[in-house]
């Protein structure tokens, strides 16, 4: 399909990701998008099909360019304290994590494709958190519904801890959005890491 474009699609997607990370999906009109992105309405429709199409492109971009590198840095952080610092303490991570947070809260419950898009990302986050916490289990996840041996139970425990760590990272970002200063959020992460490693 030939689509004449008078704009750079990648730039538009990046700007849309920024906009969607600051305001709710329902609160952003096509007028807002036209104004913010500086692209004609017809071109937006022609290229992305709908507001949802643009949102999905923006989310995909952010997951690939913000979240995937962040997950790598969390996994390579060395310890839990550093992992939490990397995930919530760096201002550069805000846009990506904000969009992820909003997508989880707002879009995943009503848009199955978004939920499907987020599930592997959250699983990768869990895996990274587990690696950072020094509880890495190379065997991966076990299938549900099986009889669990002690080793499997231990692995389940690690899965659960990793799940809680990802939830903590997103929760700290939520508190940051609610107005808590970056320093406090960072301190909270450090204090939690300290407590967890002191009482394993």
């Amino acid at each position, binding site marked *: *399909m030939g689509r004449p474009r008078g704009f750079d699609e990648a730039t538009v997607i990046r700007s849309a990701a920024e906009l969607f990370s600051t305001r709710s999906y329902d609160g952003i*009109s*096509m*007028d807002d998008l*036209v104004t913010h992105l500086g692209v004609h*309405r*017809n071109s937006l*429709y*022609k290229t*992305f*099909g*709908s*507001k*949802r*199409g643009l949102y999905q492109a923006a989310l995909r971009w952010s997951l690939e360019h913000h979240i995937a590198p962040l997950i790598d840095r969390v996994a390579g952080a060395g310890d839990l304290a550093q992992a939490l610092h990397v995930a919530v303490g760096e201002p550069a991570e805000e846009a990506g994590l904000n969009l992820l947070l909003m997508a989880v809260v707002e879009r995943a419950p*009503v*848009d*199955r*494709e978004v939920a499907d898009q987020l599930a592997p990302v959250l699983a990768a986050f869990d895996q990274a958190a587990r690696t950072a916490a020094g509880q890495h289990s190379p065997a991966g996840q076990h299938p549900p519904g099986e009889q669990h041996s002690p080793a499997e139970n231990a692995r389940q425990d690690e899965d659960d801890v990793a799940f809680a760590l990802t939830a903590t990272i997103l929760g700290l970002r939520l508190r940051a959005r609610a107005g808590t200063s970056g320093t406090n959020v960072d301190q909270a992460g450090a204090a939690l890491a300290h407590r967890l490693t002191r009482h394993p």
Partner: protein
Amino acid sequence: MAQISIDGDTLVVEIEGLDKLWALKSRLAIPLANVRGATADPGIVSGFFKGLRAPGVNIPGVITAGTFRLDGEKVFWDVHDAARTVVIELADERYARLVVEVADPRATVALVEQATTSR
């Protein structure tokens, strides 16, 4: 005003009342495979030039109905009340998009999105 429904693999757009006259259409049937998405978009109505009527009627603030050509594309319009406008983007169809007024834009967008993603 238009009534939008899903019939199997087809999106059906029924034009209601006198709008059939102005729009010179009473019913559009579009395969769901050719529906790219739907967006509630009140702002599109107050926008600039809608294109050349071919054929259609455009009395700003009152009615926009019929076929309009803009940038080499055909767009079907049937809108009185801008607040309830939904834009349905199509592919490989006579019309590039449909701009229609519906009773409940949010419900219509959800209906179209559900039908086009559950296939």
